[in-house]
């Protein structure tokens, strides 16, 4: 019998994998954005599992909101990426050091 903890385990694994991806692909900005999408997917799976097993349809509404925010985030992120590439001809994260942070 599949329980709530099974779904939570799967999303924990996906979340950790995407954290690992953020650390090992720290050069390419596009791959970083894809890892963030994967992270949001894991969180949404958590929300849906809780919504179903705790009898709360509000959790699914939050997944709806997360999808919209993720769409906005990736649209603006990719626009900034294209803009950066036009000026510097590279999307290497190592060269994103204009603020000297």
């Amino acid at each position, binding site marked *: 019998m*599949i*329980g*709530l*903890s*099974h*779904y939570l*385990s*799967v999303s*924990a*694994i*996906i*979340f*950790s*994998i*995407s*954290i*690992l*991806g953020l*650390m*090992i*692909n720290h*050069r*390419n900005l*596009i*791959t970083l954005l*894809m890892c963030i*999408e*994967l992270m949001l*997917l894991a969180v*949404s*799976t958590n929300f*849906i*599992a809780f919504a*179903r*097993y705790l*009898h709360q*349809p*509000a959790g*699914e*509404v939050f*997944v*709806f*909101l997360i*999808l*919209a*925010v993720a*769409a*906005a*985030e*990736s*649209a*603006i992120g*990719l*626009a*900034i*990426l*294209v*803009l950066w590439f036009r000026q510097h001809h*590279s*999307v290497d994260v190592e060269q994103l050091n204009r603020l000297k942070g």
Partner: protein
Amino acid sequence: MISLLDCFFYSISSMLVASSLAVILVRHPVRAALFLVLSFVMAAMLWMLLEAEFLSLVLIFVYVGAIMTLFLFVIMMLPAEESLSWKKWRGFPFALLLFALLLSLLFYMLKHSLLLGASASPADTTSTYTNTQAIGHILYTQYALPFEMIGILLLVAMVAAIMLTFRGRRVDAKGQCINKQVRASKQDQLKLVNIPSEGEKG
């Protein structure tokens, strides 16, 4: 005894984990994007198992249909730049250690959570229950304000994306000249000529 549903769950989630591993380990960005599409489809099937039909189809429409297409367009606009191999990176063992630490922490919390013991059974749904209706009912009543705000957020994001990438009109761009169009009269455009028809000659 393993039921059919359990079989579905285990095969889908193992493919989800495998494809998301492929997303982070594959070096070419186009292949990573395609593996990301595969993991979105697998996650949509997982959500279908959780009886969230509406969101699972929305995930496929929005992510596979729109966002991943956007990603692929941007990847193909930029030159094919393979990311550095993670095998050569010196920090990789440290990253793996952090990964193991995070995963074990999450599983520890999962094991000792108070929420999990109390509710083992999913909501038993009747045959008249539809997921879309349930979401719509709560979305348009209790969560109407966040719903409106998300619409404004999407509008702002669209305006921002256009403003960021819009480079102004070209000098030689062709376009409408509206006042000329309005001032045009019939006499300027139209000239009536009398041509004898073929029949009158013969």
